[in-house]
């Protein structure tokens, strides 16, 4: 697929990229700044549509789906973690994790709370449940963001520089979590990073240069 931003002048940010990711894979997307790593992730995450080509999720052609169907698919099947945590400051940790579940409405209220609690416990955040984002450290906030991304039990987790604002210790914790998600739970994780040490921990690395995939493996 390709993605060209309309001009003037038109800029092609992703060119003829072709990528197939299987369930349970842990993939790093690397490359120099401006190489189109994040753009590729937004295309995969259905936040952006390719100018040509298509994105298949669970074998479904998403190019044919309407906007609300895409919203629904993102809500139910995908999880996002960004460099900035994007937690809602008016809500407690627990409530932030509940937001995607409440939006999806698949579970009843007690089940949602139980699941949110369990997610927080698994990410060592049990004692932070009642706290507000501003009362948490950077590493904790990012873990809350991961918990929120996992709220609706997504098959695919997309992370855009998730460790960009974290120190080495916290960055390692985040990658440990991602590793567990793939090995223990069979989720697919695609993470954009420019940190070669962290990228080395994944089992597959896709390297981008100027919007083209130059190496994959």
């Amino acid at each position, binding site marked *: 697929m390709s993605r060209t931003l309309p001009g003037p002048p038109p800029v092609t940010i992703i060119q003829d990229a072709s990528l197939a990711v299987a369930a349970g894979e842990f993939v790093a997307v690397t490359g120099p700044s401006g190489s189109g790593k994040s753009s590729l992730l937004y295309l995969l995450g259905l936040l952006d549509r390719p100018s040509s080509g298509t994105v298949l999720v669970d074998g479904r052609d998403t190019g044919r789906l309407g906007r609300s169907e895409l919203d629904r698919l993102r809500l139910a099947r995908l999880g996002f973690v960004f460099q900035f945590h*994007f937690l809602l400051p008016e809500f407690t940790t627990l409530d932030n994790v509940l937001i*995607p579940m409440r939006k999806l409405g698949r579970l009843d209220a007690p089940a949602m709370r139980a699941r949110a609690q369990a997610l927080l416990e698994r990410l060592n955040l049990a004692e932070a449940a009642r706290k507000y984002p501003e009362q948490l450290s950077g590493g904790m906030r990012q873990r809350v963001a991961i918990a929120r991304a996992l709220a609706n039990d997504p098959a695919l987790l997309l992370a855009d520089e998730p460790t960009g604002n974290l120190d080495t210790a916290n960055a390692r914790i985040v990658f440990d979590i991602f590793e567990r998600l793939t090995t223990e739970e069979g989720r697919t994780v695609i993470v954009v990073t420019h940190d070669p040490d962290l990228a080395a921990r994944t089992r597959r690395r896709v390297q981008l240069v100027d919007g083209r995939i130059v190496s994959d493996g």
Partner: protein
Amino acid sequence: MRLPLFLDIALGHLRRRKRQTVVSILGVALGVGFFVGINALMRGFQQYFITQIIDVAPHIVIRDEFRTPSPQPAFLAFPRAAVTVSGVKPKDEPRGIRNARAKLAELEALPGVAAAPTLQGQVILRYGTRDVPVSLYGIEPERERRVTNIERDLAAGRLEDLRSTANALIVGVGVAEKLGGALGDTISVVSPRGVTLSMKIVGLIRTGISSIDNGQAYALLKTVQVLQNRSNVVNQIRIRLDDVAQAEPLARRIEARMRYRTESWEETNRNVLSLFVIQNSIMYSVVGAILLVAAFGIYNIISTVVYEKTRDIAILKSLGFGERDIQAIFLAEGVIVGLLGGLVGALVGQGLIELLAQVRFANSGPVIGGRNGFILARETWPYVAGAAFALLASVMAALIPARRAARLNPVDIIRGAA
């Protein structure tokens, strides 16, 4: 119980900016409050005024005139001819409502209608060297008391005295003053037909309306018919209704049927009533301006929230919130401010009314209606209308920033936030 998610988020936003929210709510509340307060003040006065009009005069008057003069026979004979008729003198026929008794009976048969025959004409009251021109009404006391409040307005004497005393006359207090006569004095009454009668003042009327007090007199219908040399003639039928609002439609029906000029109290007082319409439009535009300013306040707060919350909007959209979901959040904020503003405004309005009710004009004595304070209309609809308008204004004000929030592209914001 849990609120819907969008409401939760909307309330969270407003709670975060307490001061601005409170100011916005107060803005709306002041608009609604002033509307309610001023409305009560103006409508109270207008209603008092209208009751006065309705009380003093009959609701409908049928006169022995026609709105459109009947066409000349020449025009009827040659409908499309080039005929000019000039210098035509009115036919010398006795004026008056024909067959008035039958018409009275017909009107009285209608439900909620009381009617009275009157012969009205100009006369001169003469007492010593003083001449006072007045409008003399010949009435039947039994019927008249059902049609006007003449009995209530009698400052001295009784209506029955018209019957029990020969050639009895009731005059306005101002008329008596101008004449220099008092109750029990006998004065001369001269009609344009040259008939002179000696009549005795048996009653005085004080309505507070100077045109009546200074220019009207009442006598028995029979006596006035003699005085005006128009036996058995009635030139007005005056009607009072149980339901005042029916006056105009009924007047139109009567005129269509009897062809005589028929005026409802609304038509007679059209100049005053149209003045009220102007007065009300001025009030509503001023209050509308207050609410408009309040709406700008709401627009401002929600715009600010949208601007500050772009990151939150971006993450919600990336999580799978649609444009409608985002729009609902910010519209809800407008609705909350509007509702609370309307509610507080109703209280402010109530307070304002109570405050106005306490106001007394010192040194001026009873001003109107025997009171020296404001006359206030206490009605429910201004609260409802004010709150509804506030809600509408709030939603309109929230709509623009809400649309903008809904259309934000999450990718742009997420890129920028890193």
